[in-house]
């Protein structure tokens, strides 16, 4: 099983690719709505890509109130 740091790193890498942002511009505690300039629907789209990548299922409500990469990575890690 990957460590939380590895999971976080992969989350950041996937977000960078999906929203065409240089990886080095993203950091774990960034607000992804602000940093990626996305709305909540695009955040759900990111969630789907993360699910496919990590082979986990995250209900939509798990995203409620989540706006930084670290919390998102923790939610994924808890299901790995």
């Amino acid at each position, binding site marked *: 099983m990957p460590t939380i740091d590895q999971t976080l790193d992969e989350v950041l890498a996937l977000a960078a690719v999906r929203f065409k942002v240089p990886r080095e511009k993203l950091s774990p505690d960034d607000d992804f709505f*602000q940093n990626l300039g996305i*709305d*909540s*629907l695009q955040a*759900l*789209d990111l969630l*789907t890509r993360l699910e496919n990548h990590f082979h986990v299922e995250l209900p939509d*409500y798990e995203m409620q109130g989540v*706006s930084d990469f670290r919390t998102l990575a923790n939610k994924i890690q808890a299901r790995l």
Partner: protein
Amino acid sequence: MLDLTKYQCLGEALRDALDRWPNEVCLIESDRDTERTRLTYSDFKETALPLARALQDAGFHPGDRAAIIMTNQSKWLISAYAVMYCGGVLVPLDYKLSAAEHLALLAHSQAKVLFTEFHLWRAITQAPAFESLAVETVLVTEAPGGAALVKAFRWEDFRRKGSPEPSPRRREDWASIVYSSGTGGQPKGCVLTHENYLEQCTALTKLYPFWPGVRYLSILPTNHAVDFMVGFIGPFVCGATVVHLRTLRPEFVRDAFVRYRITYLALVPMVLKNLERGLRSKFDELPSSRRWILDRLIALNRLLTRHRPHVGISRLLLPQIHRAFGGSLKAMFVGGAFMEPLTLQFFYDLGLPVSNGYGLTEASTVLTLNDCKPFRADTVGKPLAGVELRILNPDGENIGEVAARSKTVMSHYLNAPELTSETIVDGWLLTGDLGRFDPSGHLQLFGRKKNMIVTEGGKNIYPEDIENAFDGLAVKEYCIFATNFIWPKNALGREELVMVIRLEPGAEITSALQEDLGARNRRLPDFKRIAGYFVVGKDFPRTASMKIKRIQLGEEIGKGVDRTAVVPL
């Protein structure tokens, strides 16, 4: 469709609907690519009545209030019907609010019963104010086996045999309390009557009829006045079908169009823009020759539908696009926030009419709606049947505050007589929105007079509700405004909030203060965040009881501070 003029209350009308179309499908619930539930009107009745009986046995009486905090799903509607059957008053709450906000609104509404989902209930039980919860009966759906329910019952097990007693209500009785805003400031609980809903439903279905076989995709939260009307009451009194999705991931929403051959749906501007973005990027990927052909077909469709929609022609000209939307889509309804005309025109040109409307919870749902005959992207349509609109104090361009009089206007705000008398004056609802009528009687909107914004996600945000997130900020005083309130402009556009700050004497904006401001702002949900701040050089005007005189402050700032002074966050 049932003739709603014959009915006194929603419960009666729905009861007849369940008997009139027993074998038609009323509800489909799908989770990702798996269909979970499919109920006929007869199944719906068989599920709801034992629940109604159990509620009555638990001491739920006519006029008692029952709150629902659930995502869009079949149990939302079944619970609501059981409440109406018992003559109860519905309190639909936004499931996206925090647990603390849920507790505050449950207390304000004096709900006796709560229907909720397990994950939401778990959050409520963990909130600091949980001990103050005064709800007598809590019913929790989909709780895992062995889960601790903390005084709640499983929704699925809360059943009693025997026929419940129907409790008919009169038209003027309360049907619901719908919160249009207000969790940090004064809660605005709109008390809507059975007459409000019956009249609204009659007017809406005249313009956009439902019938057995029509399928409505329910995406907006059902607690939202629009979905409650067009995703529950409207389809049910016509024998139509409501489709619920347990996820709003764009890819599953797209699949649902095709799988369920959706006829209508209502959405907020954000979702429509998302669909537009997806389509435009697909168009951009086309080879130039195919793109050239597509552009010509779109132009031809636009020409042929310039007077009114011709869905048949549009499907013939642009079959692939229509197939992607299931091939049966007749119209999409959009409201909640201002919609860019270019987006509306984009869909209309594809033969996918978006009927934009204008309304507010205080008027049940909708005051005006575009009938698309002809399509007018620059307006929000004409008043619905039975709705009178006036423009108050029009300026030189005939723009003024929109006021409405209709049987769909709410009874009052719950426990707020002053607010009610400020909002409903001589029978006219003062909307706080600025508009004018064009020569053909279409309403055009130009902004807001009131200090609030509506987000692209359709949420009403009042600055007062956000201010407590900045409690303890190291400044002398601060206040949040909607930018359009202090710098009015007769144009629609992105609506934003700004903070006005008065520093302690001799103090300056430091990087620590900026960081604190930014950090607190980021902790707010994205749709509640302020866009920036600016500093003023004198103390805020206050009342004798030391409340900030917001209107006066807003006017002073509007005259003395330029909009460019806002420092973005």
